[in-house]
């Protein structure tokens, strides 16, 4: 009888620590479950560029592009790093900004160091990556 009383505190301590361990396991498994959802719940976005325009320094044939604007939307609203690349046969210029995009098009105005607007033309690429 004396021995049982002696081991009672140890028994209670074991019981309490087991309960705490079980609670910790439950919380951990909840987090692991979230990880297990994988790509199934990840949003997939499409960038929609609805317009592109350039501004030039003059109306002379040998003019230069100094900037422009684009209207951009994304099917998944959020903050994006938007990179605009302007390319002619004379070279390439890049403009980067951070913008909040949604399904409603947003206008982004950009400026670049002058770039000769040569024939056969200019390519304006717009890329948006999550910020």
């Amino acid at each position: 009888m004396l021995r049982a009383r002696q081991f009672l505190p140890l028994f209670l301590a074991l019981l309490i620590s087991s309960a705490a361990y079980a609670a910790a396991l439950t919380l951990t498994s909840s987090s692991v479950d979230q990880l297990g959802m994988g790509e199934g719940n990840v949003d997939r976005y499409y960038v929609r560029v609805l317009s592109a325009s350039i501004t030039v320094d003059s109306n002379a044939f040998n003019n230069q592009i100094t900037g422009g604007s684009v209207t951009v939307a994304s099917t998944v609203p959020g903050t994006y790093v938007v990179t605009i690349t302007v390319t002619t046969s004379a070279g390439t210029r890049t403009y980067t900004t951070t913008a909040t995009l949604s399904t409603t098009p947003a206008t982004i105005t950009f400026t670049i160091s002058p770039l000769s607007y040569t024939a056969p033309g200019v390519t304006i690429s717009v890329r948006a990556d999550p910020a």
Partner: protein
Amino acid sequence: MPVAAVDPLAVKPEMSYSLGKNNVPGDQDEVRSVALSVSGTTVTGATVQFYKRTPIPYRVRTTVTLLDANGNTISTGTACDVYFGVGTRTATITSFTPPVSIDIVYRVNVVIQRVVLC
């Protein structure tokens, strides 16, 4: 500990526009802008602004081509009109054939060309 928010995955993170500039005798016109019109996600038209350099009146055919991820043409729209004088002019394309979703358009090419007949 909560799991951090996951960034959206890119299906189509980029689009590009090609604006044409001509350099042949009697045609040194250049495209300055293009705006697509959409209804829902379907591309329904385009408005093109170009700079006309040669004063005499002539016909200009404006062609907007929509390309997919592989560079294949998936739809085309055309306008053709007579334009007068020098300055910024507007071409309006009212339909694309066939109708396509903006979400499968990766590249937009805009070409203007002086033509004898439309």
